[in-house]
């Protein structure tokens, strides 16, 4: 399988503190990857770099078969190129309905003129209903998303991500604050999504990661500590030390 995203030798320093230290990371198309690591390991910062929120001091971020650099692009351009992101804290537009949120995320032209002229086509509305069904919000389409429960907001955000039809999905701690049943549903959605695209999931919860059943990358102090199957990395002495240390 060809490489979709290649991060190599990336470093970021915040006020003298090295949050990311010579990090290299690769993911192929249609691959699921879990990223674990203690708090402050640089997992969120890694996503910030890929999505254009944070500019690294050095290193390269190469994207797609044409090997374009994401570093020269702004957030909107990177998103248009096919990188979708779910934040650690659920961020949906609370003042707007579930349908409005999904319609905004739906893969369509993003320019202001096109958006001004846009009327939802029947196909688009069907897509929205299908998505809502997938994330268990079919009966909540016209509710203000601010009224949803925490878990439902997490799902709505995942739904918005899927609506974007990205080639790479970056998901930051999706299971935080979810009930066990909700977690299971979330796993199903992510596993399903990874069949057709690359998915990177940051998660603390080992059970959750086990259920994803995929290759795991362990981050520590801004660099890759270990990589491989979950059993492989959890038996790695370095990983055990880092986790036991805490």
């Amino acid at each position, binding site marked *: 399988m060809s490489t979709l995203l290649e991060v190599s030798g990336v470093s970021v320093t915040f006020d003298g503190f090295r949050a990311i230290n010579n990090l290299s990371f690769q993911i192929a198309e249609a691959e699921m990857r879990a990223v674990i690591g203690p708090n402050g390991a640089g997992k969120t910062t890694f996503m910030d770099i890929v*999505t254009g*929120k944070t500019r690294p001091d050095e290193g390269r971020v190469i994207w797609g078969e044409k090997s374009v650099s994401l570093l020269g692009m*702004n*957030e*909107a351009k990177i*998103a*248009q190129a096919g990188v*979708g*992101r779910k*934040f650690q804290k659920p*961020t949906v*537009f*609370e*003042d*707007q309905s579930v349908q*409005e949120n999904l*319609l*905004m*995320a739906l893969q369509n032209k*993003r*320019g*202001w003129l096109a*958006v*001004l002229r*846009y*009327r*939802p086509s029947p196909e688009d509305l069907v897509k929205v209903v299908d998505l809502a069904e997938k994330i268990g919000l079919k009966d909540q389409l016209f509710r203000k998303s601010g009224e949803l429960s925490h878990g439902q907001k997490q799902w709505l955000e995942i739904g*918005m991500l899927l609506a*974007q039809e990205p080639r790479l999905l970056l998901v930051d701690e999706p299971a935080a604050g979810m009930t066990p049943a909700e977690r299971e549903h979330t796993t199903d959605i992510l596993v399903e999504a990874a069949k057709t695209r690359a998915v990177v999931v940051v998660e603390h919860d080992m059970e959750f990661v086990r259920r994803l059943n995929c290759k795991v990358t362990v981050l520590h102090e801004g660099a890759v500590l270990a990589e491989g199957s979950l059993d492989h990395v959890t038996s790695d002495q370095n990983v055990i030390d880092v986790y036991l240390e805490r």
Partner: protein
Amino acid sequence: MKRSFIAKNPSVLIFLAILALFTLLITVMSEGFGVGGISTSFIKTLGKTLCLCLIALAMDVIWGYTGILSLGHFAFFGLGGYMIGMWLMYERTRLIVVDSLAQAEIPPTDGEVIDAIGNQIFGVVGSSDFPLIWAFADSLMIQLMLVVLVPGLLALVFGWLAFRSRVTGVYLSILTQAMTLALALYLFQNDSGLRGNNGLSGLQNLPGVTASQDHVSLWFFWASAAALGGGYVLCAWLVSGKFGSVLRAIRDNEARVRFLGYSVEMYKLVIFTLTACIAAIAGALYYPQAGIINPAEIAPIASIYLAVWVAIGGRGRLYGAVIGAAFVSLLSTWFTGGQAPDINLGFYTIKWVDWWLVLLGLSFVLVTLFAPKGIGGLIDIFTDRRAAKEAKQ
């Protein structure tokens, strides 16, 4: 498409109906076309109020819906007024000059006519030459286009610089205040080409029109009502649908909108420029009714008042902006015009001319603290309750 838009926004129809009824009522009560009862000067006040409602709509779209607290939109309003004022003043002076020179024994040359007009207009600032910016003042068509083009271009350049550097929040508000202050200070200069602090005057007289002010005032009143109606439909269309969705999303979390792939800067620039153009049209209708425009009109405080009107009326709902602008500006006219009875407390007499600003400031604070949705929010409570009742049945 049109039908579904109106169907989805019944408030637009209600607003247009109320506006039409109001216009009809005022016309019937006017000196010029009706039975009388409303003075011509009050009709002008009402016409000007409609223009203020229009710029309040623009303010609501940029602030209430998009979350950009621009404190500079009165600059665009004033520029719109200046652009139409230039033609009004030039053309009227030209007619007067031609008239007075007609009696001369030797017919005047074109150059002499131009010189005489220049003398008339720029005498007060010790000059008689036409500045370059008056090049098109003899053409109504071009000046009408400039009403939109000049403020639009200023907004485009300012917005491009500010949004591209991602200036947001209070910093952007301060920047817009600086813009309107700089423009006002520039116009105050005698060699600004727009008669310094004298401004442009006599704008209530339409060149070549012999109709009395009783009639002219109503023409402008109608034009203002039509512009407000059109502006309301335009703004309602802008803030509905997916475009409106993106605007409100930018207001609530612009970073998130970027990660959805929307160019936030571009949307801000578009809506900033568009609302500036609406403000400019409002200004171009306002100043012929006011009769005079001078740089004091675009002092920074004017744009702050605009924000206060929209806040009191209820931002994020278009009728709220209209109610706020109409209510507060009419009250302001009443209080500061000396009509409001002073209150004698025995030991102290409250003179409203002095105390109105205190009252306004206090209301602003109270509304912000206790009724963040403003007067429009009260209407929401009413309609929500009715909707809930209907849902129950």
